[in-house]
């Protein structure tokens, strides 16, 4: 009986949080707050992929902003220039980024060590140049504006609340799928390879295949998030998809901690809110906000270093300690 209650508890907590997140638009009409929370939802989708890659497969990508951008530009291009429906744009974004992820991951993950970090860094910078120079597709340095709101048939999601529901609905679905993935056979295999690569190999786990699949999933999730972002915001430019953003995504995954989804989601929420602190702290003065914004890179950099040095488990370890107070590591 006690055992049942213990195993049910996480599901109850997750369900309550999901309900709370999805009822926010009913509780507030603050459009700025809803918009900021929508950005959080977009980052939650990307960071779920980063959490699988970093926290479970033990790989780091310094180029996920590029996949985010490819998704955004791909969807914007086919919808605006080719007149495709929005859903087709999202599907294009997911397929293109998954294919890109596969092309990049296959050669780099065959090598031992951290070649993926280097390859993704190079890839991200190439894409930054492409976003700026391929004007006919991307609109050049000024970016692409006038991207229509998400719509299915006659039905257009053109309010802040509707966009919030779209993004967070998608985020909840992504999280549920990811949670299922890490509990299933591939998830156990990922945990095994995080423990010991040779040990996992000895158990008959196809290391390269597994890492490639996780990378493709994370790239496709970033592309999916990019497509959502492009249509919700209506404007995209190369600076939204810079190296800076890739590093911010790494900071979220690192702060979140390994072998966890809840930790990275919490980290994404906190780090995304930092430059928009005035949305949640009423009465925050203009100058205080500007100070926070001018120090956000310092905060991200210090967070990355600090977590790696002093709290290697990140927020996930802290959450686990709260969940099982007797300090038993699962």
């Amino acid at each position, binding site marked *: 009986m006690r055992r049942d209650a213990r195993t049910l508890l996480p599901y109850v907590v997750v369900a309550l949080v999901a309900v709370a997140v999805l009822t926010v638009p009913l509780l507030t009409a603050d459009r700025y707050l809803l918009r900021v929370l929508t950005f959080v939802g977009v980052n939650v989708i990307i960071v779920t992929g980063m959490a699988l890659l970093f926290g479970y497969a033990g790989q780091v990508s310094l180029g996920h902003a590029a996949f985010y951008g490819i998704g955004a530009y791909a969807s914007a291009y086919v919808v605006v220039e080719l007149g495709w429906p929005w859903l087709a744009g999202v599907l294009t974004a997911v397929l293109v980024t998954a294919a890109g992820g596969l092309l990049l991951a296959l050669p780099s993950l065959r090598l031992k060590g951290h070649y993926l970090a280097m390859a993704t860094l190079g*890839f991200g910078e190439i894409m930054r*140049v492409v976003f700026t120079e391929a004007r006919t597709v991307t609109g050049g340095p000024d970016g692409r504006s006038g991207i229509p709101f998400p719509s299915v048939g006659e039905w257009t999601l053109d309010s802040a609340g509707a966009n919030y529901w779209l993004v967070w609905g998608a985020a909840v679905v992504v999280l549920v799928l990811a949670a299922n993935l890490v509990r299933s056979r591939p998830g156990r295999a990922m945990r095994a390879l995080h423990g010991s690569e040779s040990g996992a190999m000895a158990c008959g786990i196809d290391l390269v295949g597994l890492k490639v699949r996780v990378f493709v999933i994370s790239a496709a999730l970033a592309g999916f998030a990019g497509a959502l972002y492009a249509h919700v915001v209506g404007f995209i430019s190369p600076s939204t998809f810079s190296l800076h953003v890739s590093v911010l995504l790494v900071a979220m995954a690192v702060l979140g901690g390994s072998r966890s989804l809840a930790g990275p989601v919490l980290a994404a929420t906190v780090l995304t809110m930092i430059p928009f602190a005035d949305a949640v702290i009423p009465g925050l003065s203009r100058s205080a906000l500007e100070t926070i914004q001018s120090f956000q890179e310092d905060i991200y950099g210090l967070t990355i270093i600090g977590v790696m040095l002093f709290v*290697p488990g990140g927020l996930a370890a802290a959450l686990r300690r709260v969940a099982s107070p007797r300090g038993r590591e699962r």
Partner: protein
Amino acid sequence: MGTTELLQFALAGLKNGSIYALVALGFTLVYAATGVINFAQGEFYMLGGMLSVWAYADLGLPLPLAALVGVAATALVGIVFELTAIRQRKDGDPLALIIITVGGSMLLSSLARHLFGPNERALPLFSGGGNVSVAGAVLEVQTIWIVGITAVSVAGLWYLYNRTALGRAMRACAVNRDAARIVGIDTRLMVTVSFVLAATLGALAGLAVTPLTQTAFDVGPSVGIKGFAAAILGGLGNPIAAVVGGLVLGMLESLSIAFISSTYKDAIALIVLLGVLFVRPQGLLGRSGREKV
């Protein structure tokens, strides 16, 4: 295309290639000592330029002294970064160290923006203006400085590596860290030394180009990536390969501007990087690095 024009492009390639070589040496020295890619290497290049400008324009020091202050201060930053961040991660887990250098890169460039402002800044040319004519092609005197500084640095590094006890200890450390420790080499000290050398070389590169290209708080990552591509191209961990990689990359970039277009010149280094990673990850001069269980 005439030979004069071709020579002009080759000179430009030599200039950029020298810079990439210095930055690549920084990557390779730290990699040899720690097995880690230092993603903050580009920030040492940025600091070399920015701190020299600060010493020259804000403190009013004469140029040679300002240059010395800039390079020495960057070396100090290298020591502080190694002691306060890298060394504190006791288990030396490569993934953790790589992520720490990524955070350090962001922190250093942001601190530079707070201290020196967001604007581009420049130094005067080291020996006034003026050009030299080489078989019809124009050679800026500053380019001679750049190539000269690189040549002297490489020679100095060669001497250190081959003729001093410290250099031999560093080489032993690069071959096998555990064995080096057993024979009494302080491997932790070697890591610190590698960071000092990497910071110094990066700073020299940043210092030498600032009169031509100006500098700013955010120039680090793009130069870092090119230097890194050069180090990979030559073969990571081997100083001579880093220099060769830098010069080859500079030439390739220059030739791509001459024969293809300048639009995608920044992408050339990265395409080379990906190409080498995929086809020949041990680099041009490296031996096959295939690991055996």
